[in-house]
């Protein structure tokens, strides 16, 4: 295959740029972002992608604090907490969002299990909190009414 000199230099340049980008990537060790769970378009699939087949039971020891009515679906304040011992993670799902898994928090030894965040809701939906402790999932859920949807649609 005959390749012009111009093409050759373009290819070399792109190759060099590629190597330069790879070399400059941050060296912090990041936890692997769970792409599959975050891309799941269905609540059940998202939970399975995140937690596999762990048993789920409703519990009054996990608390989902969410408004009854969210005026603005772009910014819905949520606080999640749990009094259970050995909590390893807490995850928030919005059932009717295009991709239900919104966020997941990994708790450490000296963490106190209470986190607040602002999330987006596309429409009135069930918000589900799953707290992982001792290999089991403990659930709390609440419907949040949304007057103006927040997914930018």
């Amino acid at each position: 295959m005959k390749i012009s000199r111009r093409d050759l230099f373009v290819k070399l340049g792109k190759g060099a740029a590629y190597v330069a980008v790879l070399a400059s990537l941050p060296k912090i060790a990041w936890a692997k972002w769970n792409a599959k769970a975050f891309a799941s378009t269905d609540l059940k699939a998202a939970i399975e992608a995140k937690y596999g087949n762990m048993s789920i039971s409703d519990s009054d020891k996990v608390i989902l604090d969410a408004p009854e009515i969210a005026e603005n679906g772009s910014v819905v304040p949520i606080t999640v907490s749990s009094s259970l011992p050995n909590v390893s993670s807490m995850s928030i799902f919005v059932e009717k969002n295009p991709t239900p898994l919104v966020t997941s928090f990994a708790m450490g030894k000296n963490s106190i299990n209470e986190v607040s965040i602002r999330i987006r809701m596309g429409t009135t939906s069930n918000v589900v909190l799953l707290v992982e402790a001792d290999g089991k999932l403990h659930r709390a859920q609440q419907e949040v009414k949304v007057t103006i949807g927040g997914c930018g649609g």
Partner: protein
Amino acid sequence: MKVKVKAKEKDGVVKAKVLIKHAMETGRRKDKKGVIIPAHHVTEVKAEYKGATIFSAEFGAGVSKDPFVKFQFKGKAGDQVSVSATDNKGQTGKSEATIK
């Protein structure tokens, strides 16, 4: 990516507030020409205290623009807490605060 952290201790409990300046594009919005604006959002946030990760979060596009997170841990005033964040394009931001 700009990250701001504030932390205050009371009775051995540190309450930290983190604000990250980020558009958090969901990948569902269209621009004026009707072309989809690609997804660009924070994917992970990590908080470190005394050399250990005391809290970390994975974010999807469902987290609001300019993510604001509050978390708590056992700690002491005078110590440092640092928070770093990364997004799906590999951009990163980091900030440190002395616990008040």
